[in-house]
């Protein structure tokens, strides 16, 4: 009902033909936020299905810019580690999808709805499955707390774009008696692609979100039976990465430095000390990642 009202607000504010122009949904959203500020608020709640649809749109756009790594064995391996970790969380039933992207630089990304991507450059710098688990669990933490969704919604243009798509689609559903779930998904997926084009991956998350994902990540890794200090080792490695290494050019950031993150994480680790002797699983990791 709220969504339909929001759509009605959009309909009042904008020419009817503009609502149907999916490709321009982003601009449309921006206008909507100026004229009808309640749109964003009224459509704040995303169902898991909507979150997944938006995330898939984002992932599709992302993969249009960076290709997947061709090593299928590695892809399946990372999915098993990730799925095992995600199974230990309160959002175990999301369609968790993990991917390794074919770039030598060091990066990892989380998208709404349970898609997590890590760069091959990061994976090959790790030394054990517990370190990989630490990275994936950090990204899983972002998904659990819907950080990416919050970032999208807190940005006037992006939030309105995504919410506008949702509202217009909801209106269609309303008119057709609630049957058009596919239409809603299509709209959200298109909004996701537009978000990528508009620079979603150019903006870092709030530093408090990074610290939170760090704290969640070490707990999730420990729940999966891994040595949670694997992630501490990853941050230690990141602290030592040289700016010019493998084309990785470190520039300014609103993100906390690895050193700051280590200092922050140290406060959370005493509670996890008892799990430090859990397996690091080095052999299987090296066989999959190292031997090629």
């Amino acid at each position, binding site marked *: 009902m709220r969504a339909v009202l929001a759509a009605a607000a959009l309909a009042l504010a904008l020419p009817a033909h503009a609502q149907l122009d999916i490709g321009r949904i982003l601009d449309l959203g921006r206008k909507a936020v100026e004229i009808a500020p309640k749109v964003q608020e009224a459509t704040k709640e995303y169902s898991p299905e909507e979150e997944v649809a938006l995330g898939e749109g984002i992932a599709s756009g992302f993969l249009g810019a960076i290709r997947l790594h061709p090593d299928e064995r590695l892809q399946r391996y990372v999915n*098993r580690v990730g799925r095992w970790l995600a199974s230990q969380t309160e959002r175990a039933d999301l369609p968790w999808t993990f991917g390794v992207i074919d770039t030598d630089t*060091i*990066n990892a990304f989380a998208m709404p709805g349970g898609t997590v991507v890590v760069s091959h450059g*990061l994976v090959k710098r790790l030394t054990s499955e517990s370190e990989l688990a630490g990275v994936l669990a950090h990204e899983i933490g972002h998904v659990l707390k819907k950080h990416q969704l919050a970032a999208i919604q807190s940005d006037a243009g992006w939030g309105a774009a995504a919410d506008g798509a949702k509202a217009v689609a909801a209106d269609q559903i309303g008119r057709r008696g609630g049957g058009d779930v596919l239409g809603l998904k299509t709209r959200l997926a298109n909004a996701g692609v537009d978000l*990528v084009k508009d*620079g979603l*991956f*150019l903006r870092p998350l709030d530093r408090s979100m990074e610290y939170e994902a760090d704290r969640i990540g070490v707990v999730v890794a420990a729940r999966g039976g891994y040595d949670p200090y694997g992630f501490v080792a990853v941050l230690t490695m990141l602290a030592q990465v040289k700016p010019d290494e493998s084309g990785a050019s470190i520039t300014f950031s609103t993100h906390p430095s690895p050193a700051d993150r280590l200092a922050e994480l140290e406060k959370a680790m005493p509670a996890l000390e008892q799990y430090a002797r859990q397996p690091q699983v080095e052999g299987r990791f090296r066989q999959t990642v190292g031997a090629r």
Partner: protein
Amino acid sequence: MIAAMLTRFVVPLLLACLSLIGDAAAQEPAFTNRATELKERPAADARTLSPLAGETAVKVLSRQGAWTQVEAGPQRGWVRAFHLRFPSTVESSSGGGVGGSITSIFGFGSKEAPKTSKVATLGIRGLTPEDFKNASPDPAALRKMQSYRADKASAERFAKEAKLAPVAVAYAGNNP
């Protein structure tokens, strides 16, 4: 038989050698960030080889979980990872351009954000904001990535193979 022996002994040995080479190459300088101890093994209850004062210069040899293997003067041993700081790599590149790099949600970089941009972190070589702007959606690649998904049951078997046992651990403090 010979093949089995090769798999069982030679390959792991080769892998071990490779990792040693990797470790040897990673002789990074670091400093203790507080008074701490150099341990014989990477464990809290291991024998202490010697105390280390704060700001002691060490060389990093390898890392293992919470512990970092270092060379401190003539001695080799293990120091808690949290007890080390690394010479700034981020600040030293502060002149680096912002445009053309893309940001990571994984996130790292220095504390200060430039006024001109909300961008940052590690750049992805050859990828610029324009690449994203011009990227067309790739639903085929998305489907391919999704085809690698693992289901709960196979992930569980995979965990058992490595003797990973799930444990109940509560989130810390302000997390649910």
